[in-house]
Structure formats: C-alpha cells, structure tokens
C-alpha cells in the first residue's frame, strides 16, 4: 500500500468523520462543562437539525449550505425550548434525573422526526459526487468544506468564549456556578445562551453527517457514543480538546481496519473511552474530573 492510498482511503475519511464528531463533541463538552450532565439527546437533536435543513432545501430549492444557518437557528430555539420545558424544572434534583430525562427527550425527538419526515433514507442532492484529484489526494468539495466549516465554527466559538463578556460568564459558570452567581453572572441567561450554542452545534454536526452520507432517523443516535468518547478524550469542558478528541476518534476508527477485522470498527470508540478513563480520566487537555 502506498502512502497516497493510506491518505486517500484511511486518513482522509478519518479526518472528515473526525470533523463531524468534533462539532458534536464540542456541544457535548459544553453541556458537560457548564450544566454538568451527560446530554443523551444530543444525537437526536443533530438528526433534527439535519432534517430541518432538508426541509428548507426541499421547500425553497436553495443550496444545502444556505440552509445550514437556518437549521442552526431553528435547532438553537428548539434546544432552548427543551431546556425551558423539561431540564429547567429538574435543575435542583440530582443530575442523574436530568440525564435520564434527556434520554426521554432523545426518544421523543426521534419520534417527532419519524412522524414529520418519515422513515425513508433521504439525501440533500440526488446522484453521485466523484472526488477531485489534488496532487494525488482524492477529495470531494463537500469534504473540504466540512473540515473548513468545522474549524471556522469552533474558531468563532473559541474567540467568543475567550474574549466576550458572555463567553467569560459561561466559563465562570463552568468553573463554579455559585461563585459565578455571587459575582453577578446571570445563571439563567447564561444557561439559555449555552443551549442556543449547543443547539446550533447539533444542527451543524447533523448537517455535515447528512451531507457526507445520508439522512436517516437513527443517524444521530448511532453517532452519540463516538461523540462522547471524543468529548471525554479531549478533556471535559475543553472546546479545543473536543476537536482534538473528535479527530483522534475518527482517524482511529478508520485506521483500525488495518489491524482489526472490520466488524470491530464500531468498537473503537468504546476502547478509546475505556482507555482514557483508566489511564487519564482528565482527558488529553486536562478537563474537569467527572
């Protein structure tokens, strides 16, 4: 096997997959870090975002990329709504109850998706897109855009968290919610802002997955485990860690086929999750301890 083959068929698919995981993992790490619970409805919210973009595309005929911001905004509103109606009510109870509630939300969202859009496999555009050749590297436009968009979205988020007042409030709440409250941070509005960002990120990850493969009602749910593995691998609460974790999990899954029978590919995320919890529970970039 030549180096180019290794790049084309193993590393590049891994990086694209990793970028999709990364966008989802950033959302998971934000909920984990700021609101302190494992959000199991993340995958299905991503599916909702992907289908919302599909609805915009089929209704207006615009390019899927133009539909992405609309889907992100819609998903942000849905995420805020879910928090107001369900999670907010459980804030003072033990966190495990919110985690279980989020599992219920996941099932509800999936049922809503199946009722509205049905159970057929869908795509944003019909037909095949064969890759272009860049000095031997075979890349599709949408793969390049997926990776670039991932870095752009995460970059904007990082600057927002580091430089703006509200970003600092979010980080303060992540460090210590009581202290943040005493220092004048409005916890309710910060929570709302967090959900808006998480919802938008969900829509983006679902959209990228749908763009690179197909849209199915279960697409987000099957991505949940690798996304969690990526968030924990990178260090809980660390945005840049989630990106690193996502890329590592994606590439590791694809490269595993070289040494393991391919039916064990899906188990790679489990293996990474187990190893990191055993060896370095804070994650690669020293996140919070769970």
């Amino acid at each position, binding site marked *: *096997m030549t180096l180019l083959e290794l790049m084309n068929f193993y590393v590049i698919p891994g990086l694209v997959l990793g970028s999709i995981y990364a966008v989802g993992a950033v959302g998971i790490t934000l909920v984990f870090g700021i609101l302190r619970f494992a959000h199991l409805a993340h995958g299905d919210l991503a599916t909702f975002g992907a289908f919302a973009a599909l609805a915009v595309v089929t209704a207006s005929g615009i390019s899927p990329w133009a539909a992405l911001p609309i889907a992100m905004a819609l998903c942000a509103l849905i995420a805020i709504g879910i928090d107001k109606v369900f999670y907010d009510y459980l804030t003072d109870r033990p966190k495990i109850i919110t985690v279980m509630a989020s599992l219920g939300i996941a099932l509800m969202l999936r049922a809503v998706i199946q009722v509205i859009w049905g159970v057929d496999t869908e795509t944003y555009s019909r*037909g095949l897109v*064969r890759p272009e050749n860049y000095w031997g590297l075979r890349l599709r436009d949408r793969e390049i855009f997926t990776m670039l968009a991932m870095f752009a979205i995460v970059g904007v988020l990082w600057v927002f968290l580091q430089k703006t007042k509200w970003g600092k409030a979010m980080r303060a709440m992540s460090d210590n919610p009581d202290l943040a409250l005493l220092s004048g941070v409005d916890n309710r509005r910060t929570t709302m802002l967090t959900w808006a960002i998480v919802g938008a990120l969900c829509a983006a990850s679902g959209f990228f997955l749908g763009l*690179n493969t197909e849209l199915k009602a279960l*697409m987000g749910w099957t991505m949940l485990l690798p996304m969690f593995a990526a968030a924990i691998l990178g260090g809980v609460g660390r945005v840049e860690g989630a990106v690193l974790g996502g890329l590592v999990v994606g590439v590791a899954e*694809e490269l595993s086929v070289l040494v393991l029978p391919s039916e064990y*590919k899906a188990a790679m995320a489990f293996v990474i999750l187990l190893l990191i919890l055993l060896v370095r529970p804070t994650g690669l970039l020293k996140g919070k301890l769970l």
Partner: protein
Amino acid sequence: MKLTHLVVAASLFGSTALVANSAAADVKVGLLGGISGPIAAMAPPMIDAAKLAFAQVNEQGGVLGGQKIVTVVGDSACNPQNGVDAASKLVNVEQVTALVGPHCSGPVIAVANSVAAPAGVALITPSGTSPEITGLDDKGTVYRTVPSDDYQGRALARTLVAQGTKNVAVAYLNNDYGSGLAGAFKAEFETQGGKISGYAAHEEGKASYRTNLAELSRGGADTLVIFDYGDGSGLTILRQALENGFFTNFVGGDGMKSDAPIKELGAENLTTFVASSPMGEASSSLDSFNKAFTAAGGSADAIFVANSYDAAFVLALAIEKAGGDKAKVPAAISAVSDGKGEAVAAGEWKKAVELIKAGKEIDYKGAAGDLNFDANGDVPGAYGLFSIDGESFKLQTPMN
C-alpha cells in the same frame, strides 16, 4: 360549550361501548415488524399486506363462526432486544393467538427462543430468511413463508459463476441475516470454483465505509457482493464504492432490492448493479393478491408483500382449523399447507371455511408460492436476479 361537552361524552361512551362489544368476540393476532430501524421503509407495505388478508377474512364471514380478527401492531425495530420486548407485550399483555413477524432474522431467532417457543405461541415470519432459523429448537412454533437464505446464497453463487464472474469480494452486515446469507454464498461460490478475494463483516450506522471497501478491493476483485439493507448501511456502502471507484460491478441480496438506491443514487449510476430476490411464480393466487392489494392502495411490486399476505392468510386458516385453541395453532399451520388436500387459493376464505367445517383436508396455495411447509417450518422457493430498468427493478434472469 355544553353541547360540545355532551358530544365528547357521548362519543367517548360510544367508543367504549364499541370496544366492549368487539372485545367479547375477537381473535387477536400480533403483527410484529421492523417499523422503525433499518428496514423501516420496507415494513409498512408488508404490514398492510398482512392486514389485507385479515380484512378479507373478516369481510367473508370472519373466523370461528363469525368472530373478527383484530390485529395489534408491535415494533421490533429490526433488533433482537426490541423484538423480544414487543413480542412479550403482544403475547403476555395483549394475549394474541399468534404472531405474524418479526420481519428481520435477528429478532425472529430471539423472539422464537424467548417468547414464542416457551409460550407455545405460533410465529410466522414473512421475511426472516437466515439459515439459522431452520435449526431452531422451537417446539414446532416457528414457520416462515419465505425460503431460507441458504438457498438464495447458493443459487446466487451458481448464477454468478455461470455468468462468468469468478472473483468477487463480499461485504456483509454483521447480523443473523447478513452472516447467514454470506456464509451460504461463500461455501457454494468456492465449491463452484470461484475465488473470494475479500470477505468482511461491517456494523450498521457508520458514516464511512471507505476503509472497509479499500481493504476488500485489495484482493483485486472488480465485483462487490453486498449482503445488507438498501435503506441502511448497504446504501452508504454502494454510494462510497461507486464514488471512489473501488469496484465496477455490484451484486446485492434481497435486502438491497429497495427503492432507496434508485431514488438516492439515480438509476443512471446503477447500470452495473443487480440484486437477487424471491420471485413470485405466476399463479391465480398471485394474480388475485396483486389485484386486491393494488385496489387497497398498495404496490404489489414491493418486497415481501406477497409473503406477508400469505403468512397472515395461512395463520387465519390455522386458527380456524385449530378451533381458536392457541396451543393447537402451530400444528394446524403445517396441516393447512402441506401439499395434501383440496387446493385453496389466496382470498378464498369462504371456500376454505366450508371445507374445514366438512372435515376435509385443505392445501393453501399462496401468492408467493405454494408454501408446503417442511418439518422445520421452511418453504421451497424461486429466486431471480433483478437489474434496474428505468426507475424500478426488472427481472433479468431466474436463478437456480
């Protein structure tokens, strides 16, 4: 305002009265199918076809001297855990007389082992094709109206070799359906002198199968055989293999004969794609089923609809023959379609009831084939290789 309250109350009262009346003299049958999950697109027509059979029974006088057959639908989601949950609910809570379904092989095996066999409740699957189902220790409760994949895999292997395809790679879904079909195919293909240069399982629901395909193509084959579902990961594999040019020819099992590849990839890109599938043999039963199902708004070309209809109809016959006794239904199923007795075609419910009342043996000739269950509850069958012509699958060549 008061009037609406009154109307609501009256209608509620009315509906409870209806329920109470019908519950007194109903035979409940469970329809267990993969309504959500990887075959979600195939399941609704199959459920409709089974319901059509029961509707015909009810129209023509019902079972057991005028009782109606009522169906209760359960979702197996095409996976063993959900299948067992849904089946336990149907059998223990709803107290159904028998089950039609589940659709996928994995849940069929799980439901047979942990629900149907222990409870002694009959189970007829219209589409569970894994060879594993033949050898189940099911106490005679498990039947199917679709032939085992052992036969399909072997027939597909012989047909490919006869067409001059000697070197293939096989990608199969890692479940009872995929591995059963792939195992039968591999054994026969190698016996016939063919070479399998890549043979690998994959999990469903992954975003990328390019590495799997790269590994498979390293053996130098230009034909990829896919045993997977065309609505699920089979579509992703087909797309990525076509886009990256890993293989030039594609062969699918019956699960790949779905409309999703045509709809999403475009017929113009699928000129080198063929799929094997059970083939209805022309018969008066098939004609009358096609007519009735089309009239009811269904598509008679959809996969496994004739098998689903047969499963439901043969079950109704068995309930009639067993006199409604749950424990006698399993044995009655093989008695009403064993090749002996007076022939009964699809939809001929009145005639069948009269024959049973007169104490005569009957032999149901189904829409999908003559059935004639063997000791394992299996049926023989006919297969064809289908290619895409226009926007749908057309028979290319029969397989044997």
